[in-house]
């Protein structure tokens, strides 16, 4: 404290005040044996049913970018319901981060329902790979190994289509690398929940689905 200097207010200086021992972590959790201190980020597949109106993809992608969510892929396509599309996003986030993505997406007006697809979901991605065509037999052999299809084969390049989950695709890309990958195009993961579990919360087959009830837990 600078004594009775007129420029300021009376009272004990910061160091002379009692300060609590407790702290919070960066996610705002009290660091306390009862509450876990840190969250590791993890991969999550988020599925949203949306109204197929102009700008809906811009709204979702704008939300993701301005709130700095870590996103690996985003796919969008129509559903069997007229005027509805499904957006599938793969994100790499902490649990609170995933919770935020779901809640912020639920606030977008064209988003009908949104939620994380449970871990046992069926996921798949389609990849087109163009490799050098000097060794066509070897390329075909590798393609067969990964249940791929040759879509185009010429004297200089061969283009192969692969589908599967992320680990299969990653393995296949590694295997094709020996031929020299010229170009690659990936759709990103799409996903559906297994069995009778709805993929987006409240989703009923062939119907519009119910608006998402906010998860308050």
């Amino acid at each position, binding site marked *: 404290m600078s004594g009775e200097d007129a420029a300021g207010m009376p009272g004990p200086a*910061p160091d002379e005040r009692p300060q609590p021992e407790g702290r919070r972590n960066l*996610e705002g959790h009290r660091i306390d044996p009862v509450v876990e201190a840190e969250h590791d980020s993890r991969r999550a597949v988020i599925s949203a049913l949306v109204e197929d109106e102009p700008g809906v993809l811009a709204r979702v992608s704008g939300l993701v970018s301005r709130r700095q969510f870590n996103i690996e892929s985003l796919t969008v396509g129509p559903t069997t319901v007229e005027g509805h599309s499904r957006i599938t996003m793969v994100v790499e986030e902490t649990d609170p981060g995933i919770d935020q993505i779901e809640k912020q997406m639920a606030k977008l007006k064209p988003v009908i329902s949104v939620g994380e697809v449970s871990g046992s979901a069926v996921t798949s991605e389609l990849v087109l790979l163009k490799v050098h065509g000097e060794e066509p037999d070897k390329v075909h052999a590798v393609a067969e190994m990964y249940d791929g299809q040759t879509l185009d084969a010429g004297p200089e390049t061969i283009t192969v289509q692969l589908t599967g989950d992320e680990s299969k695709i990653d393995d296949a890309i590694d295997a094709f690398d020996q031929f020299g990958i010229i170009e690659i195009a990936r759709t990103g993961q799409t996903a559906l929940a297994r069995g009778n579990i709805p993929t987006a919360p409240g989703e009923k087959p062939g119907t519009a689905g119910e608006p998402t009830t906010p998860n308050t837990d």
Partner: protein
Amino acid sequence: MSDSAAHPREDDPDAEPASDPADADGPGAADPAGEENRPDGETPTAVSTGAESVVAALEAAGAETAFGVQGGAIMPVYDALYGSSIRHLTMAHEQGAAHAADAYGVVSGEPGLCLATSGPGATNLVTGIADADMDSDAMLALTGQVPTEFVGNDAFQETDTVGVTRPITKHNYFAGDADSVGDVVGEAFELSRVGRPGPTLVDLPKDVTLDDTEESPGPAEAPAGTDPNPSAREDAVAAAARAIEEADRPLCLFGGGVIKGEASEAARKFARTYEIPVTTTMPGIGSFPEDDELSLSWAGMHGTGYANMAITHTDCLIAVGTRFDDRLTGGIDTFAPEAEVVHIDIDPAEISKNVYADYPLVGDAGTVLDQLFEAIHEEPDADEWREQCQEWKETYPMTYATPDDEPLKPQFVVEAFDEATDDDTIVTTGVGQHQMWASQFWTYTEPRTWVSSHGLGTMGYGVPAAVGARVAADAMGDADRDVICFDGDGSFLMTMQELSVAVREDLDITFAVLNNEYIGMVRQWQDAFFEGRHMASDYNWMPEFDKLAEAFGALGIRVDGYDEVAPAVEEALAYDGPAVIDFHVDPEENVLPMVPSGGANGRFALTEDQL
């Protein structure tokens, strides 16, 4: 609207500087000036164009006042406003229209309405829309757009308004056709106010508003699923109630959501019944009377020492309608570090966004406070804590020195106005030091009396906000309420052109400019954190605001010393119309206490040396 005779409407198409080339070639785009003129004052019983449907929808939704600026693409809507019951105020600049509409909404509790043309009109609205978005203020912006067939061709005055405003609106719309445009406008108006309020926008291509339609808009309804359940889950309420009962050091934190949710009464009953000390956020100012013994005033960067001590040491923080902004929390690691947090909010996305909520209660502030009130069976045993809070009030009083050899202190001016006016006086501000003094040294007791730019921190908010606040108070039949705009010299210079509106519309507002010829808050930070290098913060020269006021046709007064303050305040308040007082205040005065950005609330600085 009664003064149309005194103030002729500004609907002369000749006022448009450049003709819209889209009009010349656009098939189906009629010349609005050549349209059939309706007799003045006659409201159409049925709509015949998209624009008339827009206005019919606004009237049906209850809109009474609009703020805007004319221009090519919005002309059909203005033409339809001719003879409408909606009062329109022509502002000097579209930013002013947005801020005025925002403040109108804050004071009246009804969504504000602003209009602008395409291109620069729309982009000039952007700051005001972003401001409303950050402060969750209900507002509808209507923008003209080039005719649909020109969209995407870089036509004259074309901007992708929907694209530009997408991240700063609750939702925005591109009107597709004349038959549905009224319903879209009605929906956007309602959407702005349901649940967590926020600005909405409808972009109106000129062909849509000019086109014929016989479809009158239906009743305005918010989209399905956007009006949330007001009640929180009973089990969650019960758990929170137990936590509050068992707290030793409970503290209420009332945010702007308490005011927007009309929950001030419920909040007062709650805190007083259980004798829980109360602090507020800045947008929450007025939710709880600051002259109540339980009040610790507001917390955060420039909050009171006692509020920041309480928020640092509480063991149970009952936070209502707040998003835990960084200016409130300081560093998250040291924010209420020992508190269990009960968080009531209408927006589930705010729960555990910045501060983890041990007891999340999603719902309407007043409804959930009432639920909590019913669920609490015994008052927390907090006698010692209450005494501690009172002691902190004595230890860290909000004072300032007035040495004879130093210039007039700005805090003195704020206190002089507070003493000279009633509790229902509305205060608007710009952003900066003057804003902090206006919030610290005025004792707020009623909701919707503090009108400021919080989240976005928009310098220049004060003058147009005062226009909107005055018009709202008048519309509510409160012509006797005073409206004071505390402004800084820098803020005033940004939007003072709206003084022309106050003069033209004969609005009774007192503008108190706390003139230190600095961007004072920046100067304060430069002294504290940039070794006193006053780069681009020192104006060194300012126009004579009292004379500028006179040139505008307002009352202008200059004040330099303490003995001139009371007479000037009295004269300005007595004056029936806009008055500007240019208070030349101590340029070296700093805003204290201060929690440095990211610092611990409990370590607020009381002197410059402690920063």
